[in-house]
């Protein structure tokens, strides 16, 4: 089982994340480089907690509220999300 049943690839998750984070930062998604720590763009800890709620809402995934601290870039977060979703699907 390498393909998550949600059908979301890591790339798609990265697009979802940059769209969402762009709203928090009041920037355009293309302005946010996927390998640069989000804190450098001014993503504050309040927004990082909010993002965690969004992930729960859209993917049904309950993550630690500190997930955006441990995976501080879009690339890292997308990979972590993909892995967690695959884990969920496999456990089902």
């Amino acid at each position, binding site marked *: 089982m390498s393909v998550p049943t949600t059908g979301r690839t890591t790339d798609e998750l990265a697009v979802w994340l940059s769209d*969402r984070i762009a709203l928090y930062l009041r920037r355009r998604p293309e302005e946010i480089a996927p390998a640069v720590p989000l*804190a450098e763009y001014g993503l504050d800890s*309040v*927004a990082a*907690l909010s993002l965690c709620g969004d992930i*729960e809402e859209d993917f049904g995934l309950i993550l630690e509220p500190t997930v955006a*601290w*441990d995976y*501080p870039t879009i690339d890292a977060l997308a990979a972590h999300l993909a892995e967690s979703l695959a884990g969920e699907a496999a456990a089902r």
Partner: protein
Amino acid sequence: MGTAATGPHGAPGAGRGAPSPGGQEDRAVARIAELEHRLGDPTDERGEMSYARLLDADERAELSEAGERALDEVVLNADFVPERLGGRLERIDTLVRVMRPVFRRDIALGLGYGVTSFMAAVNVWTSGTAEQQRRLAGLLLDGRKVSVAYHELAHGNDFVRNEFQARPADGGYLLDGAKQVINNADRAAAWVLFSRTSPAPGSRSHSVVLAERDGLDPGRYRVLPRYDAVGVRGCHLSGLEFTDCPVPGSALVGEEGKGVELALRAFQVTRSAIPGMALGAADTALRTVVGFARGRRLYRKSVMDIPHARATLSTTFLDLLICDSLSLAATRAVHLLPEETSLYAAAVKYLVPKVLTDAMYDLSIVLGARFYVREGEFGIFQKHVRDLPVLSLGHAGSAACQATIIPQLSRLAKRSWFRDDPAPPSVFRLHEDLPEVAFDKLTLAGGRDGLSAALVTAVDDLPSGSPEERAAHGAALRLMDELRQIQEQSLELAPQDRTALASPATFALADRYAVLLAAASVIGVWQQARGTADEFLADPAWLAAALHRLGRRLGHALPDLPPGCETRLHDEVLRRFGDRRSYDLYNAPLAG
């Protein structure tokens, strides 16, 4: 006089929530009585810790020497050390009560002698190793002080941007940089320092370091000059400056890089607890003004007979009961609902200092020109007015507390409100035993809210027989409606309103939510007091008046209260003045 003492008023109920003999409650009551006795009648000018002497010390910008000696003798530090480590700390709600006799007399003494050490120690109780906990307990039980330094002036509550460094080197760390406005920096045996351990941006670059003064190279650190402050003038507020000062690897508290998380979890304990301690100071302010109003005659009447003055005394008493209810629920939630504590702690730290500060202002109007006098019978009032704001400045500004609530609102709106189970009744029981604090269960955002759920459940259970009960029920219905509105607005929050730079309207939403949590606590306290021997708390008069006051604060159009409410409150204010009983939920005996 209005001192018709009735029955065993403050006695804990014989029914539900009754504590076991010789248990936590008996120990708490005995400890509070010991402190009151040792500190003495503050209105007796001959006493070493009278208001008069405390004002003298404040004029000299010193902490009362006699006060510090007394607290040394009773080993107040033991109340900050968990029982398993040899101290007396069993319950956070009890710690709040134990500190009130100190805050009643002098906020500076409460902070400068004690609370700073507690704030520092909680980090170690939360995440320290067994050895760190043992050592710190030893220092505190020895009467030594511990300082805590989270903030740097340049970064305010945005402490993720702090620059003070602990650079990893040779298995330990090199401390480098300065920290400002630290209580007791000059005389502490150890400092808890929030330090940058990685240059990377974000929330995984800081760690908490416990530096013991004894092991440090004296050539590599210095204490900076003392600050002169408007309030708490006796407190030793200064700074620390380190220059590549080595500390061993064993000084690290918790994991490297997890400092922000550690601090936020420790804050949940301290933010729940400290504002409630200050109720002691507001009690003194109210008591001072009651004494003034009874004695002074204007327009050929006693000030007490002037409706505005009389109403102000009653509403201030209500404010104290409201603040104490929220403080009770939050401190007991630390034990019972640790996953939800982030919300309640933020609500306490946000709302209680605000309500108390407003209450002091209202009281100052009754006191009139005497409010400005720095000495004599009413001098303590202006000192408490100057000292009280420190509570909302230090440790977390009110906006920072709202910012803890804001990112949780939409999740609560979707998942919790009108769905969750209510908080267990023990959260609202004043005297019931509690299990140890589960420090490891405190989480940054839990997504549940049993306190609001208790409000929703209660609305169906509230009686509506007497006029007071009907008034309470009506106000509670409006409050439930308010929760519905907060829910709708939280669901509509735009992403940019779920960041620290959210709009003022979003901050207002967090304010309204905090008021609702206070209302839920008031209802819970009243429900659990029913059927106990506490006649006043079991009476719906204060419940109706408190919900009415909170509702009006939210802009609800509510009918006037039945006249019985005001009379009941006024009589209770006078009775407690005459009987020397505390103006809080506990109706505790006072030394003066």
